């Protein structure tokens, strides 16, 4: 599973990355994490608000920092 965090590297993006890592760890999912800062790549997902979470190239949500529990739900569904 490849989990990407889209965003310019602001505090919200870092927090979302942390939450996503924690969620994957708690579920025991072996995931690869990637930070996407390139604006062209971010736009190619149709995202206009950062941070955004992308799981296996599927955009899950954008514009907010989801909590660990919420990300766990998403990862369970996508796994």
């Amino acid at each position, binding site marked *: 599973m490849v989990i990407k965090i889209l965003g310019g590297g602001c505090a919200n993006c870092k927090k979302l990355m942390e939450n996503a890592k924690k969620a994957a760890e708690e579920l025991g999912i072996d995931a690869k994490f990637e930070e996407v800062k390139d604006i062209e790549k*971010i*736009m190619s997902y*149709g*995202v206009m*608000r950062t941070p955004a979470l992308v799981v296996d190239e599927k*955009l899950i*949500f954008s514009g907010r920092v989801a909590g660990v529990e919420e990300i766990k739900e998403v990862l369970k569904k996508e796994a």
Partner: protein
Amino acid sequence: MFSPVQKFADFVTYNIFKIPQNSKLASAVNFFIFDTIKIFILLFLIVFVITFIRSFFSPEKTREILSHKNQNILLAHILAALLGIVTPFCSCSAVPLFIGFVEAGIPLGVTFSYLIAAPMVNEVALGLLYANFGLKIALIYVLSGEIIAIVSGIVIGKLNLEKYVEDYVFKIKVGDVQIAEDKKTLNQRLKETLEFTIELIKKVWVFVVVGIGIGAFLHGYIPTGALAKIAGKNNPFAVIFATVLGIPLYSNAAGIIPLVSEFRRLGISMGTSLSFMMSVTALSLPEMILLRRVLKPKLLAVFVAIVGCGIIVTGYLFNFILG
């Protein structure tokens, strides 16, 4: 609504701390306790309500509404400025939003009406203004922010400045937007709204408390009208000075607003205070640095100049109306 809070503040000041009544310290401490509680109650309520309304609007939806062809251009500016209030906006998102809008064929001027209204009419500022000055001043703040956004957008649109947008912006292809924000249940929405409100208050509370603290000190120790000569109605440069001073102070926005009521008591006029606050929230240095990535320096300068002039004119107008 706040008389129990006042009773509590009196009780703490005179009965628990046992500070003698009518002393300067008592006045400052009482003010601090009362204002802190009052402001946080109102801030929580207002941010909660606005965030809830916002959960029904997304920039993706805004983009769709604004990109309809053969739309009356004035109507598009008004719509953009209104949507600027209700769409969630973090300054980190200014660049992707700008690209997304321009790419969808939304005119540059309309995009700016949106980009100006979004930070200018700020929910924390609105909450604190309402808490300190009541509905009338809060409405004036919203209305003048909207008018500045609409007029600035129209002016930028008329100047045909598309060539001063960085070239790569027009080359970016925006992918399909497919976020299922609409499918949320009411409970989900309320839960997310509550979480966001708490997050936001966690972020700004230090600034608010420091602002109230300084205000409380001024309240107890500095006499009314002390600054009237320097920054009152009779100084024609006060508004300009306040606007320029506000630009580099962005991060302290939440702390400056609780101070505004004290500014007023010290003799700084309402228009000057409003100009200061708007410049703090709308012309922030961090946002300009972000916008530089999509705008060439000339357009950025035009943006700052037009918004700055709008804020200054508003300041004078309100000094004239409200005194």
